[in-house]
């Protein structure tokens, strides 16, 4: 049985041991090039481990909310299927593959890491080139756009988050409305700004904003958010505040979307 005094001595010993080792490592890092890389690698590995652990705990406690959202989504899908059966009088053929719809191929993925507190946030997902993900693919959820894939390894992909000050996507007000440039407002986690809306357009607060489909990155008609207040910018266009549907702090599951005709479109653009 440990006595209280022994525990305190043990803690003090451990603290001084750690402090001296850190001091020695710091000196080693400053004086040896190889050691610098080795210690940096070790420190990053340690941080990734700690970060991954805290992220897992956070996800565990959000499972109830996640399950409710999934149950809602499954119900909506089942309803859509029933509607399809009723309207067409036939079932979906059993050999139908669901990964490609129209010109877009959809790949489900989980978020391995994401940053939230920077002006240049990024996201890492657990699908890579082996799963068919390529740079330039979009990352979406059923609540909006999450980001764009910038680089891929065999099993992981690195993408720029929508919460990035230099990321702009093409968005439309309503399903048939005016198209503008949507970007993160740089302040709020669910705030965005829609620019380049002509002054003659009548705007109503609460209108839903969708992806326009005018880029080869994202399919059209993904709901992104709702319109809020708007102001005239430079006397030429409206700048509309958008409340995004996506809660970036709890994104766990995403879908990678790749345009199957993207290479052809890019080739045409480069001519």
């Amino acid at each position, binding site marked *: 049985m440990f006595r209280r005094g022994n525990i305190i001595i043990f803690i*003090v*010993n451990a603290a*001084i*041991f750690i402090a*001296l*080792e850190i*001091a*020695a*490592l*710091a*000196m*080693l*890092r*400053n*004086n*040896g090039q*190889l*050691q610098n*890389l*080795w210690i940096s*690698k070790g420190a990053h590995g340690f941080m990734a481990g700690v970060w991954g652990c805290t992220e897992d705990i956070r996800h565990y406690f959000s499972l109830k909310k996640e399950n409710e959202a999934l149950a809602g989504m499954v119900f909506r899908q089942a309803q859509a299927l029933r509607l399809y059966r009723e309207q067409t009088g036939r079932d979906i053929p059993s050999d139908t593959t669901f990964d490609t719809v129209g010109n877009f191929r959809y790949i489900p993925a989980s978020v391995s890491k994401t940053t939230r507190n920077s002006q240049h946030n990024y996201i890492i997902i657990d699908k890579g080139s082996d799963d068919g993900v390529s740079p330039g693919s979009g990352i979406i959820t059923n609540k909006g756009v999450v980001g764009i894939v910038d680089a891929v390894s065999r099993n992981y992909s690195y993408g720029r988050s929508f919460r990035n000050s230099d990321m702009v996507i093409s968005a439309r007000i309503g399903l048939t409305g005016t198209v503008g440039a949507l970007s993160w407002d740089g302040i709020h986690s669910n705030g965005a700004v829609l620019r380049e809306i002509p002054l003659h357009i009548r705007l109503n607060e609460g209108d839903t904003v969708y992806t326009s489909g005018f880029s080869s990155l994202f399919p059209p008609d993904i709901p992104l958010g709702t319109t809020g207040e708007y102001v005239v910018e430079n006397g030429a266009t409206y700048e509309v505040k958008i409340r995004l549907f996506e809660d970036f702090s709890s994104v766990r599951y995403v879908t990678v979307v790749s345009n199957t005709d993207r290479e052809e479109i890019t080739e045409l653009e480069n001519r």
Partner: protein
Amino acid sequence: MKAIRNFGLLYILLVIIQILITNYCRFSTLTTVSILPVMILCLPLSVGTIPAMLIAFATGLSTDWLSEGILGLNALALVPVAAVRKPVILLFLGKDLIERQEPISIQKNGLAKIFGAIVVLQAVFLAVYIMADGAGVRPFWFNAARFAVSLAAGAVLSLIVAVTSLVPSGKK
């Protein structure tokens, strides 16, 4: 008091010997000869773990500074030796020695037990030293061979240091 002063002088002398070994006695890339772990083992038992760790850090740092090594390498490897010194003494030489704070004696404790303690402390030192020195770029077989050769050489040299520097039984 006189014994402590004498030990202090002996300790400084051993540090100088270690610096000379590091600078001039390079047998091969596989051999790292160090008497620093045995110096920590031979510290009086009245010196607690925290002072021993601080002494180890200062010793390692001065050795690094005055020899052609990377600053911090010996300090990094020697602090764990000081941290495990008392448990190792407890394991090999018994609880009585620590409780009575008697000096370690070859005659009283036996050469085999002291050699066992030296080997363990030398192994702790070399494990950290070789890992940090290799910085993950050297192959495992090289590190393992370096560890084995250095442990054999260092343990023998450390035993000689222990035999010559430890207080004989009955003398203070």
